[in-house]
């Protein structure tokens, strides 16, 4: 029940600002496609593949991550620190575990929405990807992990600026490094190993493989699931343990 309530809450938020949310979710992928896909991409040669075809799955992973994270972290942190409406969630008998799962799913759905927008923006660029249910499953799991990370960031932040800092130190590096804009084999081996540990690396590589018609890796799907579970458990742990919410 708490899961449905949290998803309903995210839906109400979306309904109120859907136009702004849609426009904001389109700007950055569009700029990446023009600047990197068209501009830089015309000077880049890859094995049997146009750079923009390489880029778009990475942008979908990036956009899913960014929107899932920010839709949860910013909203929940505002409700906790400024609006104080999060107090009513804590006081209520709703299971906090269910509420965190619901928020994470709600964030993931927002991520999928932004991913679909990237797909639509890519159409005029002549990008055609092979879509399948598993492509959307990877988007969902990627969004779930970062939605749950958004809950964690919102709970651990002392001020609203802390959410921005969380983005700067955790989300922004992944945006650029995790197999999104360039293949990992172009960077030193040691850094490659570290980047392979991050969830977005698995999301972007899987979205790329699936969109090229290759099979998905069960290992990567399990890694994304594990990240989601760990972030959800940590969020519930900190909501229950914090002395001053």
């Amino acid at each position, binding site marked *: 029940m708490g899961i449905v309530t949290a998803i309903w809450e995210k839906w109400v938020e979306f309904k109120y600002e859907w136009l702004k949310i849609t426009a904001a979710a389109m700007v950055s992928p569009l700029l990446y496609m023009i600047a990197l896909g068209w501009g830089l991409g015309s000077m880049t040669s890859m094995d049997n593949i146009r750079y923009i075809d390489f880029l778009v799955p990475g942008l979908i992973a990036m956009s899913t991550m960014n929107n899932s994270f920010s839709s949860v972290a910013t909203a929940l942190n505002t409700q906790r620190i400024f609006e104080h409406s999060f107090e009513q969630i*804590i006081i209520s008998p709703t299971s906090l575990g269910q509420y965190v799962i619901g928020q994470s799913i709600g964030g993931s759905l927002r991520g999928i929405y932004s991913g679909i927008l990237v797909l639509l923006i890519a159409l005029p660029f002549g990008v055609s990807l092979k879509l399948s249910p598993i492509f959307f499953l990877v988007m969902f799991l990627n969004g779930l992990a970062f939605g749950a990370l958004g809950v964690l960031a919102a709970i651990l932040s002392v001020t609203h600026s802390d959410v921005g800092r969380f983005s700067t130190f955790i989300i922004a590096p992944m945006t650029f490094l995790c197999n999104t804009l360039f293949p990992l084999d172009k960077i030193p081996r040691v850094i490659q190993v570290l980047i392979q540990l991050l969830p977005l690396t698995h999301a972007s590589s899987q979205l790329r493989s699936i969109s090229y018609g290759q099979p998905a890796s069960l290992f990567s799907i399990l890694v994304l699931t594990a990240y989601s579970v760990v972030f959800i458990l940590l969020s519930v742990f900190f909501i229950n343990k914090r002395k001053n919410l």
Partner: protein
Amino acid sequence: MIEIKNISKTYPGQKVPALKDINLTIETGEFFGLLGPNGAGKTTMIKLLATLLKPGSGEIYIDGDLLLRSNRNVKRKLSMVTQEFSLRSNMTPEQIMELQGRLYQIPKAKIKERTKELLSFCDLYEHRKKVCRQLSGGMKRKLMLCRGLLTEPEILILDEPTVGLDPFARRQMWDLLKQLNDKGMTILLTTHYIDEAQYLCKRIALIDQGRTDRVESPSLLIKELGSTAVDEFDGNHTKSRFFAVREEALKYAASLENEFVIRSTTLEDVFVALIGKKLEAK
């Protein structure tokens, strides 16, 4: 019944505790007030009851069950109206009520019925489709009370519920709270309006610097101080003296050279006398 046992709370980075060894018992069906000056620890107490804060030591029991953030059965009995506005600014009153109903697993039809009933009573029904940021402060305050009552709680915790309400709305709220208490709802109130506490509460606790001073009925506290007051204005200050019987007050007033007023003692006099004594002692 709410049992507060040996509760102490010190905020991180603070040396002075916000609450120290508080012990209170609030009976089922009681209308109980928590009074104290600014920074006395009232809101800390309320936040502990709402499980927003965890005590440094001590426990709170509701009908014998330990109150914890994870104890959902106990939390089902409680509802709280906070001092600060705690509404989602992008939600309408209708959506705020629905969210509350969903959080307490109330059937949809019941949420709809109670929403109409409560919003109509508080003159908010015609504003039900406006987002909260478009509502006035008084409307938001009333909406928060409606939200608190939607779940028909056994225990209602009110932290300064009438701040920002006009006198008419305040009295309307007093009537509603009296009716709910008459029906058996336990109500715990903190307020700066001491006339409000005097009118509504069967017992009050005076809290200052994190400690409870007195827990009594307002009438007994007034009787102890003296039920008749004489205010004498000497040109600079007003000095009040209290008398057990009116005749003594009249006799005293007859001896005064300055302007004076004879009146009934109020709970505010008790409050000022007790807190004032402590300040003088310092």
